């Protein structure tokens, strides 16, 4: 299983879940599983074109997955962090 860490400001869209376990062989597949479970997250994580939203950065095992984040391969035990670029706020 792969663990996705949900940032605080999206938890109202995940029934307050802090993490979510998924299966998938790429970051993209894992995130699709997440938004399938919590459809409200779609617009916050993905742009209309289906890319990662410009205010979201994905970290895979504590390293940025940008660019090309959706195609990054994932394996059992990986950790994905959805990070919100709220800088300066």
């Amino acid at each position: 299983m792969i663990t996705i860490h949900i940032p605080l400001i999206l938890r109202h869209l995940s029934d307050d879940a802090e993490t979510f376990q998924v299966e998938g062989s790429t970051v993209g597949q894992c995130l699709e599983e997440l938004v399938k479970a919590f459809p409200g997250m779609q617009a916050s994580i993905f742009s209309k074109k289906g890319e990662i939203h410009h205010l979201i950065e994905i970290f895979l095992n504590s390293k940025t997955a940008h660019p090309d984040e959706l195609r990054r391969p994932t394996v059992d035990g990986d950790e994905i962090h959805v990070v919100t670029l709220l800088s300066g706020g």
Partner: protein
Amino acid sequence: MSLSRKIAFVDLTTGKIETKPISKELRRKFLGGRGLDMYLLYKHTKPGVDPLGPDNVALISAGLLVGTLASASSRTHVGGKSPLTGYVGSANVGGFFGPEMRLAGFDHLVIRGKAEKPVYLYLHDDEIEIRDAEHLWGTDTRDVQDLIRQELADDDIQSLCIGQAGENLVKYACIRTSIKNAAGRTGIGAIWGSKNLKAVAAKGMRDIGIAQPKEALAYNKEIINQVTSAKVSKTMQKLGTPFIWGVTNSTGLVRTRNFQLNQLVNADDIEPESIEEDLVGTAGCFACQVHCRGKYFIKEGPYKGTYDEGPEYTSQGAFGAEVGCTSKNTVLVCNHLVNYYGMDNLETGSMISWAMELFEKGILTLEDTGGLDLTWGNDETVIELVHKIAKREGIGDILADSPLEAAARIGKDSERYLVHVKGMSNLHSDERPTPALALNIAVSSRGSDHLRGRPAIDLYHLPEKVLRQIYSNPIPYDGPLTSDYRDYEGKPWQVMWQEHLYSTVDCLGICKYHTVFLGPNMPAYEEWANLIRLNTGLELTPEEIYRAGERGYTLERLFNIREGMTREDDKLVDRYHDEPTPLGLPVVRGRFIDRDKFKIMVDEYYAHHEWDENGVPTREKLEALSLNTLDKSGSEPSNLV
């Protein structure tokens, strides 16, 4: 050699100009820019100096790496004792002036006295001319720069200047260069106005003298790649700082109607995507590849067709959320007007929103405002007030003073509604849900300030391993750290660490948007050590660079203490503690800053700094930083070289 640039001491009363070299020892201790300016401020002003008197200094400096082959090395620092707060006056500006000043042969200017008539300085070929500026007095910040170029018949001249706001001693007048670059905070423009100093122009032809040019160029390519490949830089390139607005407002982190709400509703028109529709391109500062500044023409109303640049995130808050306006046109027009007159956008919007709350509460009446209706969201009134403040007309004369002075003039408990720290207004961000950010503004050396120590990435919810990597370098830290922005634990360390980091980059003259202010993967001490060595030949370890930033920050603390600041000033206004946030997402709604936990944070913050329980740097700390030439009071660091 880039290190051969000089300090010039200019006395506007006598016309005397003296130059001195900057010793290697001083460089190693303070690097340059803001840090060295703080040393000069401490050394060349007497305690209690009148900020608008001839004995205050107007400081100008280029950071150590400015004009070199280091990326985003554009920043100029300006300083003096602040007319806004009475404490450290200090602000930082991008654009192209700093490199030009270094090319002209100068790194630091210490300007004192008062010219009999308006003047401007012209820096070129290791010389400084004091020139007549009577014909320039009364001009706005763009015209004055154009007129100087015409007069000196050189389109390449870069100038720092004040507009009418500085001439009229608006207490938050700023220094400007190019179309919109602003050294915005602490009212340095009023210091210049008090000295009859309209502008400082520079044209440089001297070689900077890079220590290892080939290697510096190659290394800088790596830095450029590091910065431009970061996700956040791409977002900045597209939307500029307004990108922050959408998510902070929808989350409920934006103070609205002065401090009554924490979210602006029906604000689609000022969303970054809406502002982007009006942009005709982006502009950037010297040696920057990010180009975060929008270019726009105003599309409607009396200012239709006017060109300007921005707006920054700050203008969305100042002329949108705080005053309850939801019109993009109002944000763009007010952004233009503060650029034109030379005023700090943040302070201007905050003073107007405070006046609006006073009007709502009946403390200000139509009689006081000269018939102006200060109802929330009144676009015309907000625009009119910007004019009135700059010209000190009617109610604008009161609002042009510092927040505490204005409250004293109005009386009637009006101070209670000010949102400030140490007499400087808060950014429009609402820090009640975020203890780290609240601590940052409360303890900052120049008053409420997000650019002095904000751990902005605290809101990112980064993996804790990433946080640990950042905050335990270049000096070790194994205390608590948490990526939950609601926590109080570990935050004092983050704030102190950020204070030293921002102090360091201001000494180097590098833009903060190329640091961890924006993203976790940006250059830091290791990279700066390489840049310093390759560009200047100075060998410094990452820790020595960190300590130089710390040294400058400690001097700011010492200056403030000398000018009367105590622990009592490291505080938030009561509303942060007493009024929970009414709006926003569940994770921010109903939140306030707990008084007891806040006090513990301040204690821990002092302890990390090695300051005593009153916030005074200990003798041991001063000795460790070589700020140990002590006078009787035990806190006087001058004459160290």
